[in-house]
């Protein structure tokens, strides 16, 4: 049996995978187990069947996303970020909690910083605008992907930034 920490949409779950003799898997998510028949389809797809759970069927695509180590899961037209934190550490107690660690907000394209809406130490909510950047002649709000506290503001209004430049760090 292998155990993984998986963050889906910013929510951490503990996933234990055990292969059963007949080829199915017993997968336990946050303590609840289910039987899964899985097949790879194409480069990034997994077809899941739940033979003991109403014969439910579904396909999840897990393709690498722009940020290294992150995958973008696609399910019925909805895509959500997924990260895998590897084997469960004995000290981890984050089951069911919010994902921990810092989040960097980077410029997704070259542009000019128009406004910085937060200061170090501010508490922000998920999806709260933090920086406004002008690119392609349109102003775009950059929002925090998570709730947290601003640890660092590395951008100032009026400066030009390259794509990938870190603007704000949230913890």
């Amino acid at each position: 049996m292998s155990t993984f920490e998986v963050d889906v949409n910013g929510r951490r779950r503990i996933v234990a995978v055990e292969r059963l003799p007949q080829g199915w898997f017993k997968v336990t998510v946050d303590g609840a187990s289910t039987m899964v028949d899985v097949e790879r389809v194409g480069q990034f797809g997994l077809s899941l069947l739940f033979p003991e759970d109403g014969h439910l069927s579904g396909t999840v695509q897990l393709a690498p996303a722009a940020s290294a180590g992150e995958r973008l899961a696609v399910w019925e037209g909805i895509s959500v970020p997924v990260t895998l934190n590897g084997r469960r550490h004995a000290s981890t107690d984050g089951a069911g909690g919010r994902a921990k660690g810092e989040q960097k907000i980077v410029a997704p394209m070259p542009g000019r910083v128009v406004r910085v809406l937060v200061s170090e130490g501010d508490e922000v909510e998920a999806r709260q605008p933090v920086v406004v950047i002008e690119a392609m002649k349109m102003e775009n709000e950059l929002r925090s992907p998570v709730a947290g506290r601003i640890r660092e503001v590395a951008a100032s209004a009026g400066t030009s930034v390259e794509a990938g430049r870190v603007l704000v760090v949230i913890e």
Partner: protein
Amino acid sequence: MKLLIANRGEIAVRVIRACRELGIPTVAVYSDCDRAARHVRDADQAVHVGPSPAVESYLRIDRMIEAAKATGADAVHPGYGFLAENAVFAQACADAGLTFIGPTPKAIERMGSKTGAREVAIAAGVPVVPGTDAPLGQHATDDEILREGGRIGYPLMVKAVAGGGGKGMREVRSAPDLLAAVRTARSEAGSSFGNTAVYFERRLLHPRHIEIQLLGDHHGTVVPFVERECSIQRRHQKVVEESPSLAVTPALRERIASAAARVASAVGYTNAGTIEFLLDQDGSFYFLEMNTRLQVEHPVTEMVTSEDLVHWQIRIARGEKLTLDPAHALTPRGHAIECRIYAEDPDLGFMPSPGLVRGIRPASGPGVRDDSGVTEGFTVPVFYDSMIAKLVAWAGNRPAAIARMNRALAEYEVLGIKTTIPFFRWLMGQQDFIDGRFDTTYLDHVLADRDESFSALSEPEEQRIAIAAGLDAWLKSASSPGQASGSQPANAWKTAARREALGG
């Protein structure tokens, strides 16, 4: 004929498809970042026209003309955006002996000035939104600006004379905000269009955006089509379009279409163009502006009228007569809806989300049309509009078209980057949208009030994704060379990333 497409992305692919159907060889142009773009690969020939920034490539008139000369192209399709409404470009094509697939430079210039176009409409007896007759030049004093604002009344819109696409446009709710709005609009307009002139228009409170597609040939015939409903806008940018409009009766359709045809005829308009109107709640309509080119939303008209507008553009430019039945063009068959799929993250304020497309499986099947411009392995660049596909659903009636769009959105897979598909899935389920209760202010209002993610999944769905991720890691570690099954799963995705980087 050999046709050069002075554009990129999905519209270039759309034009190439039409040319292939008509047996016309095609020439694509591309900037540095578009070397591997689909339009480059689908064309018969392709010419590099400069670095990635549009001003150094897709906006370079000289490079376009050179590319045509170098490949022996004798016609140019401008698509939309970039040089599509640039009279200087149209004239340069004419001067170089190239057939420009669009109206005359004169018509582009005349209708390209928003105040000039208003004058044409007024002269043709078509109502315009109450506003300033002459533009406010760079030297208008604050007093003059405020006086003119008072004359129009608030709320009003400040608009760039040369504007378009929501740029150089500001809403002003009361007099104290006017001067600042004029300054901002001027600055945007100056950097976008090289022209700082602005004018004012009264802001209708709950208008619908209704527009009439039309075609004009070189023999004096102008044919207007059934309206498009484009009121679903985010920050003045259309995101969903449909045809016909729930708000337009056959009698009103006749009146709007005939008003549009009068405006087009007044300038001897040729080729494809669209006249935009605001439709007020009391049923009055006002001329807004004319787009002297093909529009992004042209497929909804094609689906309900069974005509191919790009074929017609080429045929008209070749001198053919418009033989289509005007009554037919005004009679919609069923209902069509288009969603503009952008590489944007709707959960982060629709931030552009450029990057490597790891895979794309567009929706298909009955009643679905996909006009996408990207393929697996293409990196959506940061330099241009981030629309990657137009998805259109057709059905016998509007509820069935919405249901089909929902089905199509759910089966559309774009891997590796965020798109606006989750936003459209949400929108198709909104009761106001389903009931047709919306105007141009609808979407911005709803979005301002809304705080939830468009990508929210149910608990069982999130669990299923977690299960998939766990199984993926397990399977990857089991297949890693030199590793016993499941022994070092922590590195599974990193190992996979290394392999993916190595692979083709």
